[in-house]
């Protein structure tokens, strides 16, 4: 918005793009000093994205489809690249897709990280990625009617639920193995879970040869809901509910996307409070994952201890926000609740206790005899696979890549501190766990630092007006990695488009590679190590390639096998 030529970060990338593809770039628009949208010719889209991705340290953060027919007669695609080379910024490659033929050249053959995004934009807008290797549905259920594209502006009311068109699930699970395998299905539904998934493991004896999975069984249509029913401030509360564990990260990402789009200067004190609460959220989330690691390695006492200590982080959130979860603290322009002197002292006391107690528990965990044996060298994520698919958070940092939104694109209160980034080179479950452990202690240090010299002043600004059709990115580093939101304001006090991408979305595609070559009994541990909402994976279908038989195993049984590693359910 207020970007001037001197302060803009990322101009060398644009220069390089113009040099390599002289006639492709049509227009550049700066949303902030470090966010630029470049419009390219549709035919050059894959080349432009691939150039930024592989030649200039770009990572694919999200892709936004938008029905802009009422604005310019076309559909639009925005490929968001997080540039993590010498200059850290976001470059958004934008292209218009004709509303008549609805086709665009797929970026996936050049940049594999685009695969889920292109499958999703096909489901939601009916745009056809030409050359996309995987043409299955991603988000829409198999029994959803053909030709009904939910996010098109003229398609349907947000409350409409079409009749299912089929009784059976017709999803085709992919198995790339050269040998014969057995199928192990995990899923699809678990009555107590918030997000079920169906896993299918292809095994040879006890070894996983390949894996495939289907998610989005409970797609909640939040983007549509926000675009049609809610005002700008109300969406901050909806974003709080994207995830039951790290919802606040979404709320901050959403609020900052609108703030960036409108050029709102959020008071520093509000930014510091946001960072303090984000770290509070990270503490409880990482403790939850550490507890689960204990559980899956058969160390249930450790699980209980981590969950006991985690209560302190929940108490902290309750004291600072009034609620253990769904903090409901953000508004566009700042926060709703200040941190007062007394709360500051209690916070310092609580995190002091947390530091001491968690340190003792970590000592116990790493000295547990079979812990290292279960997690070292298991669930390997090859750094090159990671490079190709743009995973985020402890998953990518555990494979040696220094990616952390807090450091790369400092937002909220992280501008006020020096942000350490922890990486591990082991690429396994142990590495991911060690990253989380280090980050837990960082969170404490960050909160201490921000409470020590909190900027003074107001916590909310109302000194702005909404303008139609302004758009920008907003992002946070959630406990599971980068959350990326893209918002475009509308002309009716509602969002024209809200695109919300949760961190785990970027981590699912690499899970397949992490499972390959491991034993079935390690599968729950590996899935747990990307820290998804765990109960999703209820049952597994195991297919034995050699014996050509298939068997469905209850998740409880898989979990038992993972913990005890005796009496294989495959026999």
């Amino acid at each position, binding site marked *: 918005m207020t970007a001037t030529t001197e302060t803009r970060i990322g101009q060398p990338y644009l220069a390089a793009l113009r040099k390599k593809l002289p006639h492709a770039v049509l227009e550049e628009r700066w949303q902030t000093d470090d966010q630029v949208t470049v419009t390219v010719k549709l035919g050059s889209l894959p080349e432009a994205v691939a150039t930024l991705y592989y030649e200039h340290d770009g990572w694919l953060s999200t892709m936004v489809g938008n029905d802009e027919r009422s604005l310019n007669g076309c559909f639009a695609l925005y490929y968001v690249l997080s540039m993590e080379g010498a200059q850290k910024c976001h470059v958004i490659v934008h292209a218009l897709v004709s509303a008549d033929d609805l086709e665009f050249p797929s970026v996936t053959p050049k940049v594999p990280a685009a695969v889920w995004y292109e499958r999703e934009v096909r489901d939601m807008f009916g745009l056809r990625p030409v050359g996309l290797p995987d043409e299955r549905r991603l988000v829409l259920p198999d029994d959803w009617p053909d030709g009904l594209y939910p996010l098109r502006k003229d398609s349907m009311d947000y409350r409409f639920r079409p009749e299912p068109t089929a009784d059976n699930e017709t999803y085709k699970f992919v198995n790339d193995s050269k040998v014969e395998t057995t199928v192990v299905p995990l899923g699809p539904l678990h009555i107590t879970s918030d997000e079920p998934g169906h896993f299918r493991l292809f095994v040879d004896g006890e070894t996983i040869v390949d894996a495939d999975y289907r998610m989005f069984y409970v797609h909640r249509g939040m983007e549509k809901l926000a675009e049609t029913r809610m005002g700008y401030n*109300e969406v901050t*509360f909806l974003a709080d*509910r994207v995830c039951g564990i790290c919802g606040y990260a979404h709320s901050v990402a959403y609020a900052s996307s609108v703030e960036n789009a409108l050029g709102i200067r959020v008071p520093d004190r509000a930014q510091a409070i946001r960072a303090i609460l984000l770290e509070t959220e990270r503490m409880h989330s990482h403790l939850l994952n550490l507890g689960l690691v204990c559980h899956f390695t058969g160390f249930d006492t450790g699980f209980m201890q981590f969950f006991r200590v985690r209560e302190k982080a929940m108490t902290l959130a309750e004291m600072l926000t009034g609620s253990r979860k769904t903090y409901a603290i953000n508004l566009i322009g700042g926060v709703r609740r200040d941190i007062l002197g007394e709360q500051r002292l209690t916070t310092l006391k609580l995190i002091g206790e947390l530091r001491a107690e968690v340190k*003792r528990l970590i000592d116990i965990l790493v000295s547990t005899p079979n812990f290292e044996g279960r997690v070292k060298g298991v669930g390997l994520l090859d750094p090159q696979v990671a490079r190709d698919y743009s995973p985020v958070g402890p998953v990518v940092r555990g494979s040696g890549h220094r990616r952390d939104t807090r450091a790369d694109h400092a937002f909220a209160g992280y501008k006020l501190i020096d942000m350490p980034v922890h990486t591990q080179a082991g690429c396994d479950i142990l590495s991911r766990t060690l990253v989380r452990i280090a980050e837990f202690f960082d969170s404490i240090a960050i909160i201490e630092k921000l409470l020590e010299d909190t900027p003074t002043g107001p916590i909310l600004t109302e000194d702005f007006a909404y303008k139609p059709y302004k758009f920008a990115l907003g992002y946070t580093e959630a406990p599971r990695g980068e959350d990326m939101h893209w918002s475009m304001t509308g002309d009716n006090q509602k969002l024209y488009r809200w695109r919300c991408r949760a961190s785990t979305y970027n981590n699912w595609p690499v899970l397949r590679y992490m499972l390959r070559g491991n034993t079935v009994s390690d599968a729950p541990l590996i899935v747990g190590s990307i820290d998804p909402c765990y109960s999703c994976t209820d049952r597994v279908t195991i297919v034995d390639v050699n014996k050509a038989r298939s068997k469905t195993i209850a998740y409880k049984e898989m979990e038992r096998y993972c913990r005890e590693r005796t009496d294989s359910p495959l026999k």
Partner: protein
Amino acid sequence: MLKLLREVFRTGEATHKYPFAPLEVAKDFRGKPEHNAVSCIACAACTIACPPNAISMETDVAAGTRTWSISYGRCIFCGRCEEACPTGAIALSPDFELAVARKEDLTKRAVFSLAACPSCGEPLAAAKEVAYVLDILTRSAASPEEAERARFLVSTCPACKRKHDVEQLARIGVERQMENR
């Protein structure tokens, strides 16, 4: 193993007695919003601020009433209603035990009567809201004439106000014509 045992003994008992003993919550915990119909003026500010539409208003012109209602089943305990309310009639309480045996019991209502426009007799707005605004305006009025004018503006319905304006304009127009002669 020894470390673990030591930790277990150090901790002692970690569980709370709840529900057999009350559970303490933080000082500004956001629980059930309590509505006070006595101070509520049925202005509907909370219905607009409420993100999940837990609060709503319904007007029954025939009966001359406006019904305010809250559904605790929809409430997300955000406290936006409390921020929006001009009279402090709704505020979040620390109460989090909201389970009920029947779904209907999750809804609470308050019925307000509507004020009629003194000119045409049609219902205008909640009587308490009209009285509230009137009170503020008359108290801040500089002169009795201004207060009287405020009374007219606040209690008259938009249609009658418009008619009144047209009549006045017409009168001024006639007077001007007379002067010009």
